[in-house]
């Protein structure tokens, strides 16, 4: 049907450079603006709803009911996380009542550049469910996709491209997970890694290589498309692993 890119180590390194370049700009946008852009992504996906349904049916073997459900859930998920952008810091930050005469507060900030191994299951929704929470607080991301319907990832890239999302914030590589994981774990400019459905072997490689630069690691179970659609598969706790809490102190006095 189509020839799909098989990303190499070099492609991954280029993607990290692009993600790093885009990071400060994205993190520097107002949280409200990031929310608008995520919402816009949802709108753009909705505008191409039928095309995505057809692709799911044709390339991933979905029946039309399941395909409609997955596309609609993906749109809803973008809207869900769009709303978190300017609320996350309020819910997960704190004012700290210290005993001394200081004003002391903690805010979550983005970890930086995140690499995400996306699930095999739910080729559209799984991708969106990994991507959206990572970019909410201002991270940039490289999505690594290996599934039966990789063209969906590329269709999603077209949606992102028309959604006011700055270039470099989301980078998508299709290719062999097994081939890339050692390089991903060992890349010193990757601040955090999400891996959905990692085998014990993959987990071991990522953690061992990542330890060289104290990379943050988050592992999640893959799940069926039905389970990906469920509310249990979206939560601000998908954002939490990709933030750093910064605490600032200042004396109070006259």
């Amino acid at each position, binding site marked *: 049907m189509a020839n799909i890119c098989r990303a190499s180590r070099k492609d991954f390194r280029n993607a990290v450079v692009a993600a790093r370049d885009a990071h400060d700009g994205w993190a520097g946008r107002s949280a409200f603006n990031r929310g608008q852009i995520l919402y816009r992504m949802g709108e753009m996906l909705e505008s191409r709803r039928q095309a995505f349904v057809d692709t799911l049916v044709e390339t991933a073997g979905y029946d039309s009911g399941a395909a409609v459900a997955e596309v609609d859930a993906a749109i809803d998920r973008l809207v869900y996380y769009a709303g978190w952008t300017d609320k996350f810091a309020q819910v997960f930050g*704190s004012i700290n009542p210290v005993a001394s005469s200081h004003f002391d507060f*903690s805010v979550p900030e983005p970890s930086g550049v995140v690499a995400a191994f996306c699930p095999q*299951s739910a080729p559209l929704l799984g991708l969106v469910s990994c991507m959206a929470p990572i970019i909410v607080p201002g991270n940039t991301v490289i999505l690594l996709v290996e599934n*039966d319907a990789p063209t969906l990832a590329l269709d999603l890239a077209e949606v992102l491209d028309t959604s006011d999302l700055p270039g470099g914030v989301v980078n998508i590589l299709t290719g062999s997970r097994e081939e890339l994981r050692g390089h991903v774990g060992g890349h010193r400019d990757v601040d955090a890694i999400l891996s959905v459905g990692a085998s014990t072997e993959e987990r071991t490689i990522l953690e*061992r290589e990542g*330890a060289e630069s104290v990379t943050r690691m988050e592992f999640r179970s893959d799940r069926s498309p039905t*389970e990906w659609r469920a509310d249990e598969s979206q939560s601000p706790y998908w954002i939490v692993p990709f933030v750093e809490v910064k605490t*600032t102190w200042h*004396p109070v006095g006259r």
Partner: protein
Amino acid sequence: MSELEAAPDTARELLFGDEWEYAPAPQSADHVRLEDRYGAFVDGAFRDTDEYFPSINPATEETIAEVGLADEQTVDDAVLAARTAYESHWRDLPGKERAKYLYRIGRMIKEKSREFAVLESMDGGKPIRESRDMDIPLVAAHFFHYAGWADKLEYALPGPGRPRSLGVCGQIIPWNFPLLMAAWKLAPALATGNTVVLKPAETTPLTALKLAEVIQEAGLPPGVVNIVQGAGGVGSALVEHPEVDKIAFTGSTEVGKHIQKQLAGSQKRLTLELGGKGANIVFEDAPIDQAVEGIVDGIYFNQGHVCCAGSRLLVQESVAEEVTQKLRDRIATLRVGHPLDKNTDIGAINSQQQLEKIRRLVDIGEQEGADKFQPECDLPENGFWFPPTFFTNVTQSHRIAQEEIFGPVLSVSTFRTPEEAVERANNTEYGLASGIWSDKGSKLFSISQALKSGVVWGNTYNKFDPASPFGGYKESGFGREGGVHGLLPYLELPSQSWQPQTPTNGSPSTKPASSTSAGASPEPKADDT
């Protein structure tokens, strides 16, 4: 008035030199009750070990007590005692009951605070002024703070579903704040319903053993806290023990990376509080005299044995000369000497090994061409000592600007613009703490935002509080200790523990799990119920 104005600059300097002799003001150590020898604290009792090692006073090099070296069997017993205590009652004990134990421990530490402070200074070398006024009060405060959380955990983390405790925590702590680090580790772990095997550092084992006595006296159920002593090998045995669910480590970045590697693929939870090379940034609009005090607090506090020390001073070019001159004058007044003297500002270096490391890096600093300043200082003959030191003309590539020295050694460099200050401050693998000195609020907040560090002190430095989260960016580690954020590393959230309920065959596209995608249903852990 005119005379004052005309007076030369030197008249305003505080050049005490030999002119002001301080009478000795020793803190009595009579009320410290110590055994000659302590075993391992396992399952609520001290037990003998095959081998013992001495814990020495770094100010005198005399042995204070002997401490039992935990062998593999002891570590195993400690972990199993913690496992049994966890499963038999501690995890199911109502939060308000756990809270009572923690309040009691906090209260008892307060009652014995003088004894703890003196012993901490004897065993670790820190000035009594610091152990008495900072370490021990914060230790008690930590237990009080987290005691109050034990029955309020459903309010700690937003969202539906109750968080669960993890199980047995292996906690490995450093020698720079021995009892305080024990409190930072124990209090949140116990409040959240976990049990603990704690490994203190081998040069500062004693206050943790006194804490074990308090724990006994407080009636904490046996096995909830176990303490095993020794060096890296003991820590390693704890890290690798299959019945440990979580490791919390505070120490060097090198060892932290090693632990992260050791745990690869193990599914154990991990938090790391590692090294730092904190930038203390002084802008030209800063209150200079306060800033100089902050610089001194930042690097000479606790002999510089502080992971968040402000060990890199970045000073704006226009005020660099004034700041370094004032710093020179100020550190000439610092009193280096016996830790138990109440007038001492800088105590003993913690160990011979650490002293050698400091000397080596200071030599390298000189070889690489930075200019060293040290005030005249009479150092005692016995013990391990290093005078307060700073280097000027330090460039970013100098090893003293990049490596954590963990001693009373400051590197000073200058910058011209705020952008350059941020660039330099962030130019390190570490990201634990920074300081900003400026009278301009908007600048302070914008610089704070730009710094990649977990703690930012604005117009202050080295402040700590149990309610305030502490922890690093980048290679300074991950996870936070203190405040509500300090609970998270000891709890499992419903979304983390979520497992697929149906086999992943909901989509016709899903292939049967191959050998590389077995992660869809990881094996449940032993304590999953």
